[in-house]
């Protein structure tokens, strides 16, 4: 875990001290310098490629440059996702860069300073595993950051929470997940996938906690990434609580544009079809973002299908049922939470295993002999 490596800790301490030691106007430069040093150490030669991408993105005010920067970023992302050897944090970095390029073209980022852009892209705490930041909010947070013992204390507590989640929960659950190599029965398979369901949450949210905690010690608020996702009452709510910064990113830059484009076609008479296509396309991209393998794509399509199904069922539920008191009652909500958790947990199988093994594992979960 990079967060616990002393090289990272030393770099962050250096960054923290100099961040508050320099006048406010140089803070972005401090973050950019330390962040660049961090990325150069951990990502090696790829650091130079990112510098080039950032410089091109800086000139994305011009339409052609924006296209070149966007396509180059996507091409690199696809290339690395296909080879499954992605340089440190590039999945997150690429989406942040695309956000800057798109928002620049949309005119929502009026002023773009190169030093701010470098600080945004190389901000070390969020460079390892997110959260996926937004440029305007980040620049404002850096500008307004105040040194305070309350922030340091709250940040340290959040870091401790993350470390505890990682080492005492996620890493222990990972050992149960490793039993998949000799899964022996239906009951064993269900225990393993339940363990994986919890492990992936504790592991990923731990990284987010540490990133948010580190940033908090600097007085910078990063966006939250998880909000008790396994207590979601339906799959749509789940995606509002799970990897929030990613789901908001695909909502803004994939789902909405795809839906808007389809609405300009003859499909506008059937909005449910537009929603289904938008969900499936969006979540196929979410699957591909995790890795260009059949298993990840299947996981994405599965979630697209679940969201589509939820959308259609919700549309088609007659008011005579939806208006009944039990429909929104406590029991219905508990059922919703349990059913959503079950659907999400079954979906983790292709996330955990490559496709042929995932198929065997699913068969075992549902009673087929090994």
């Amino acid at each position: 875990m990079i967060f616990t490596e002393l090289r990272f800790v030393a770099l962050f301490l250096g960054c923290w001290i100099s961040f508050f030691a320099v006048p406010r106007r140089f803070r972005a430069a401090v973050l950019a310098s330390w962040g660049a040093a961090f990325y150069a150490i951990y990502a090696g030669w790829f650091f130079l490629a990112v510098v080039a991408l950032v410089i091109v993105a800086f000139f994305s005010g011009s339409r052609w440059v924006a296209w070149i920067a966007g396509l180059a970023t996507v091409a690199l992302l696809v290339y690395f996702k296909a080879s499954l050897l992605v340089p440190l944090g590039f999945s997150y970095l690429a989406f942040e860069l695309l956000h800057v390029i798109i928002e620049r073209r949309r005119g929502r980022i009026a002023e773009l300073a190169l030093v701010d852009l470098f600080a945004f892209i190389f901000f070390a705490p969020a460079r390892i595993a997110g959260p996926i930041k937004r440029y305007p909010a980040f620049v404002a947070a850096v500008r307004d950051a105040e040194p305070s013992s309350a922030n340091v204390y709250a940040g340290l507590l959040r870091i401790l929470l993350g470390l505890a989640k990682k080492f005492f929960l996620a890493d222990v659950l990972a050992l149960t997940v490793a039993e998949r190599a000799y899964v022996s029965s239906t009951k064993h398979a269900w225990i393993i996938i339940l363990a994986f369901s919890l492990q992936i949450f504790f592991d990923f949210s731990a990284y987010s906690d540490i990133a948010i905690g580190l940033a908090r010690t600097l007085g910078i608020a990063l966006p939250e990434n998880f909000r008790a996702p396994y207590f979601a009452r339906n799959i749509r709510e789940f995606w509002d609580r799970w990897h929030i910064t990613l789901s908001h990113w695909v909502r803004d830059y994939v789902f909405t544009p795809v839906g808007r484009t389809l609405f300009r076609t003859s499909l506008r008479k059937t909005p449910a079809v537009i929603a289904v296509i938008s969900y499936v396309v969006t979540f196929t991209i979410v699957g591909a973002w995790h890795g260009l393998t059949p298993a990840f794509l299947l996981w994405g399509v599965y979630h697209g299908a679940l969201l589509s199904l939820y959308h259609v069922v919700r549309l088609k539920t007659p008011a005579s049922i939806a208006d009944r008191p039990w429909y929104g009652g406590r029991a219905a909500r508990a059922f919703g939470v349990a059913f959503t958790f079950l659907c999400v947990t079954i979906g983790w199988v292709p996330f955990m295993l490559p496709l042929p093994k995932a198929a065997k594992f699913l068969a075992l979960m549902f009673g087929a002999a090994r």
Partner: protein
Amino acid sequence: MKRRLLFLLLWLVLFDRAVPRLLDAAERRHYEGTTVFRFENSDLFGLGPFVDYLREHPRHERRRVVFFGNSMLFGYFLAPEQAIPAQYQRFAGDARVYNAAINGQELGTGYLVGKDILDDVDVLYVQVIGETANPLLPSLIPVSDADLLRFDLERPERAERRLQSWLGRVWQMYRVNYRMQAALFGTSARIYVYMHKRDLARLFHVRTLQPESFPPANGGISLRAPRRPGVAPVPTERRRIMGDLARLARARGKRVVFIEFEWDNSPHDDAEVGAFNAAFAPSAEIVIVRLPKSLTIDGEHPIPAAAAQIAEALARHEREAAR
């Protein structure tokens, strides 16, 4: 908030002063006690702290016998007290027997660990299988540059090592946290929690690797250590590694016993083994343990009765060698 931060810092400083004494007590109980010594869950974690402890405590009241190998010696499928090293303890008088075997380890790992602890043990048993060394080894035990090259291992990141060493000098708990976990839990804290979770799994009747019962012993194992002076064949890399450890044992007045298991379908060349033994005995010796398939659980790993027979044969051979 400032007061809370200062309180936290003060607590860390005070606790740190007590760490060496706490570690000493925990390690004495763990390494010098009477309970069966085996790495929990057969993980590498305990190896570094084990080597560190032996190197820091070279003088000992009881004879030290260390077994190093793979799942055969670890006792895969077996409870700690059923494995070969634990059964050997019954024939070894007051010697402290350590089962330092780890599933999947090969001769290269045994050689590097053996080099590090040879001065601090009386008899070292090394199982002969494969030649490679575990890639994680350089981050666990001291490995020389020449050995890094020989076993194609990567040097741990230098800047990280330097920072760790520096921080370890000012923060005791940081320096000894692996050793403390190994001494308290026999493994890492996470493996310990996992092992206890497995107890919970048994409660729910989830099948685990440990068979409910073992077949009865049918037939017997045999042990031989041929010693025939003659022209030694051109040594393989495996024999070169063994020869290097044997020369080291001779130079330091120690004894290394290499265990080679022989199954029905893998007969050994006694002439070649005999030439090695003639060259290095009594400082180092190869013993061939023949294990009939009928005495194995899965065609490879011994049932408890066979482990007991192997342990007794090794102990008997050791007594004869001492004479």
